């Protein structure tokens, strides 16, 4: 099978997966007991007549297959629906949150990879010596921290005790309702430090552990020994021969990390009052805002699938050995 055919097959499979995810989420949320207007904010009942009217207006009194059909029909036209709880089109609500999520995920990813790769490579070079052991124990501990607890811890230390960073929100509420000046860009970065550090540190610890193992695995292979035997300087052996090959498996990790930052950020966004997609989804679930929930699930699954696909494509570009195997399914699961 040629590369183009493989890509086409993967694309079709990806669309099918996303379709299945949306269907699953749609069924799950519509099977759940309760109506979107039955209980708001836990307990107070909205006026019965108003509720009935809303149910009728949004077609929630129709059978589930019919609602599903209508939903797909709208989706095919690029229409994500209308949010019950926010009283605005879902597109707009999601579009508002995406920049915040991307900023948070981008900053966290940067910290994750720069710090994680650096530590992992350093550990591999100093393997089984004091720096490796110390860093190894520290990364093992950080990797095991619950992110929401680390978030609280950082808030307590750097937000409350030392007062170095703001304790929440995306920017200064008085000066910067919308970021439009240089001061406000700096202010946004200032507010980004703690949430990004929370996600980034835990990710970096994982990346470091992963990268160390990958480097050590490569280090036992013949071409590395050959490079050393040729008398290449150690620096060149590590950077050119070991690192370049160890980065191959890192590509897969990259594809997996991004979706985690989107969905794993639910708790972080809630704690730091960061108006991103995770928080939007969480609030929507609590208020039974079906269109928003399905829309966020759709986006999340698109990102997961796209991340995997991108990683596989990059891997094929970077590693000629995989191109030969592309006719089998192996590359998908490797």
């Amino acid at each position, binding site marked *: 099978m040629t590369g183009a055919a493989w890509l086409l097959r993967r694309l079709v499979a990806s669309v099918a997966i996303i379709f299945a995810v949306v269907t699953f989420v749609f069924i799950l949320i519509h099977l759940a007991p309760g109506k979107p207007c039955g209980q708001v904010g836990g307990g107070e009942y909205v006026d019965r007549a108003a509720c009935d009217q809303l149910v009728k207006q949004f077609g929630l009194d129709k059978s589930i297959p019919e609602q599903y059909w209508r939903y797909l029909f709208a989706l095919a036209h690029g229409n994500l629906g209308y949010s019950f709880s926010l009283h605005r089109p879902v597109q707009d609500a999601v579009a508002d949150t995406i920049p915040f999520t991307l900023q948070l995920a981008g900053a966290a990813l940067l910290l994750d990879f720069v710090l994680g790769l650096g530590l992992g490579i350093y550990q591999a070079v100093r393997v089984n010596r004091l720096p490796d052991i110390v860093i190894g124990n520290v990364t093992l501990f950080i990797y095991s921290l619950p992110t929401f607890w680390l978030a*609280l811890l950082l808030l307590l230390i750097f937000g409350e005790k030392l007062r170095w960073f703001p304790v929440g929100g995306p920017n200064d509420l008085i000066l910067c309702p919308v970021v439009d000046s240089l001061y406000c860009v700096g202010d946004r970065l200032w507010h980004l430090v703690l949430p990004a550090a929370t996600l980034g540190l835990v990710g970096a610890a994982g990346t470091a552990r992963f990268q160390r193992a990958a480097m050590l695995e490569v280090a036992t292979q013949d071409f590395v020994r050959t490079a050393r035997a040729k008398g290449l300087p150690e620096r060149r052996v590590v950077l050119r021969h070991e690192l370049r090959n160890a980065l191959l498996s890192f590509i897969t990790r990259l594809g997996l990390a991004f979706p985690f930052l989107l969905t794993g950020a639910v708790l972080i966004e809630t704690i730091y009052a960061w108006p991103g997609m995770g928080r939007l989804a969480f609030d929507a679930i609590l208020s039974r805002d079906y269109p928003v929930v399905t829309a966020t699930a759709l986006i999340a699954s698109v990102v997961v699938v796209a991340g995997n696909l991108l990683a596989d494509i990059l891997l094929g570009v970077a590693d000629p050995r995989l191109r030969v195997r592309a006719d089998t399914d192996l590359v998908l699961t490797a």
Partner: protein
Amino acid sequence: MTLGTWLALFVALVLAAEAVRALRRRGLRSERWRRFFRQRTTSWGLGILTFLVLAALAAPVIAPFDPNRQLDILHLTNRPPSWTFLLGTDLLSRDVWSRVVYGARVSLGIGALGALMAVSLGTLVGAVAGYYQRWIETILMRGVDVGLALPRIFILLMAVALWDGLPFPALVITIGLTSWFGTSRLVRAEVLSLRQRDFVAAARALGADDGRVIFRHVLPNAAAPIIVSAALGVGNVLLLEASLSFLGIGIKPPGASWGNMIADGAPSIYTAPWSTLFPGLAISLVVMSLNAVADGVRDALDPREDAA
């Protein structure tokens, strides 16, 4: 803390340390066990896990107070750690140490049960898919693809938030049902290569049926990835439960789980950080120990080192 509880705590610590030491000594005899204990963190992890399991089992002896009793809502709220209240008291004047000890039952229980369920399911699906191949494999593994693309935390939030007041077993089942996809992929890949081996052909030639071949011959040889994913799975499930409880939709108060203790403590974190810090530390310790043990298992069962 009374003398009895101190004594019980001491006994649990000594028992845990001795158990690990005994295992280490016994382990010196075999190559695999030696590799398992090669890193010091593995011994520590095993010791910490043993201690916490002992503490959870002996909770009534080790915890000085009833975990849900509000000791004195007027005078004993948010007390800092002291000899009477080892880890302080929370906003409702409950003893944090007692709640951590009793919470271990809930948190470790959910972690173990949820992971057991996820790993069994993942192993079964992976083994069936890898062994039978053809259309069975296609259906199962496409299903797994979908499962891996599901935003798991959303699904759990939905399941738990929408079906309000999910009982404990349902919570475990929900978490277990959404956590097995990764394991099934690992097991399938392992089974795919194992089923080509001669000993499988030999077993089949001797007339063993499929069930016997899978469970007696193939799966025991795929033990390494299964055990590792079980160890990591317990930590993952524990973290998931903690996240859900932290959001207020997991274990219902007043019952103590480490997650909802953090949630209870969070509003008063600036004035009484101990009621938030210690349950989080307990979670971190357990997950860290499990990761360390998983590293050890990986070293011990690494086929490349067996050959060497």
